[in-house]
């Protein structure tokens, strides 16, 4: 099970300001809090900074690593920015966020995954567009996973992201993802499955309820990694509770430590 802390992203106002002011203390603080709250990986995304993305990525990676010794999830569509971030990541095995079945992206990102022996988040989409059904996603998965493995990425380093569509605009969107997870687990049991938890609730009120319910449902179906806000206590509470209830927390030790850490 893996939690990627999502907070260091320049599309968030406070991070954008911290980057503009080169406020390293703020970045270090957010990184530290996320690790303390249970994040195993720290996502770093500065995609909103049009012209200086690679440079800012470098600064963020260095700054985060002054505070925590956690491995990083380098999050960018730009191969150059990914390269910069990966080259500076010092702790553990980094994650690339993301590769996909889109030809251009696949060809640009794959060499980086091999060069840095990184884990990869692989989006279940190709040049055919956004997937709608479980079948659409599995068509991509059945090509993408063998391609990555043949190229030298170990099966266990692949994190498939089924891509979450809001249930408010497509009422079968949640169930299609749950079905996708079950099929991936059946066909590629060693591959991991990851997603972000905010898309699903777009356009509906009480978004947190939907996000939380979706985490529990996807985890029950076999998802084993999440990109989320680890400072969200309720979400983290459900995370530990679900792990324990699904028999994935030996002697409920993680649940108990979370309790003792104040959750």
């Amino acid at each position: 099970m893996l939690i990627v802390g999502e907070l260091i992203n320049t599309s968030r106002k406070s991070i954008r300001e911290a980057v503009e002011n080169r406020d390293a203390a703020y970045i270090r603080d957010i990184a530290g809090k996320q690790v303390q709250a249970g994040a195993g990986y720290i996502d770093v995304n500065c995609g909103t900074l049009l012209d200086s993305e690679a440079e800012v990525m470098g600064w963020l990676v260095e700054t985060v690593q002054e505070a925590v010794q956690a491995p990083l999830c380098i999050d960018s569509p730009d191969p150059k920015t990914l390269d910069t971030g990966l080259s500076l990541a010092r702790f553990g095995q980094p994650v690339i966020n993301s590769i996909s079945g889109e030809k251009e992206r696949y060809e640009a990102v794959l060499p980086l995954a091999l060069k840095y022996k990184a884990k990869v988040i692989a989006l279940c989409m190709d040049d055919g567009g956004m997937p709608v059904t479980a079948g659409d996603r599995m068509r991509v998965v059945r090509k993408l996973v063998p391609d990555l493995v043949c190229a030298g990425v170990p099966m266990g380093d692949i994190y498939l992201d089924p891509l979450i569509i809001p249930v408010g605009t497509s009422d079968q969107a949640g169930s299609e993802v749950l079905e996708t997870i079950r099929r991936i687990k059946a066909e590629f049991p060693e591959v991991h499955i990851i997603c972000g938890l905010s898309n699903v609730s777009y356009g509906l009120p009480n978004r947190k309820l939907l996000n939380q319910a979706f985490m529990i449902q996807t985890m029950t179906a076999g998802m084993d990694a999440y990109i989320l806000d680890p400072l969200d206590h309720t979400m983290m509470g459900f995370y530990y509770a679900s792990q324990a209830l699904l028999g994935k927390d030996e002697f409920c030790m993680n649940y108990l430590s979370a309790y003792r850490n104040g959750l």
Partner: protein
Amino acid sequence: MILDDIKSATIAGQKAQVENGVKRALEEGLSPGDILDNGLIAAMLVVGEKFRNNEIFVPEMLIAARAMQAGVRIIEPLILAGERKYVAKAVIGTVKGDLHDIGKNLVIMMLRGAGWEVVDLGVDVAPEKFVAAVQEHRPQIVGVSALLTTTMPAMKATVEAFVRAGLRENVKIIVGGAPVSREFATEIGADAYAGDAGSAVEIAGGLVA
């Protein structure tokens, strides 16, 4: 009154009732333009307002739009036979590299509901394609959507393509999408930022007024 029935049925997303109401109104001798303006469009303006105020949510807006479209389908042939004018014209698309269409489609639906003629360029639209569409359709407004931090640079490229083509002064460019902000719109030289589909209609209306 029949127009009020059409309006409230549209707001409630009751497709069959809207269809019946429109047919009945035509039988009673109301003009297609009257039904459109004071029944269907009036309803969608209320829907946009309620949406902006968080009184209703995306699925409710979708179902209302579906009901409106069912009504429009009945009167469209009659309207097209007449001389009815659109409010104005807009060309809308999601930028290159971005396949998200939900926000864009909501904006299109709301604009059409408000009486606009809209050319939908779809998703993954290259800057040159936006420019070509403006040359072809001559709209007053260009709507540009991006839902990823990673495709926001393509918005800037789109605005720049209009400058290069010498067409920047001919259109007003509105940008929108989850990661986009008013500051970003200003930074890349767009004319306006719209935070949701309801305000997009209001802002577009303001820009052509």
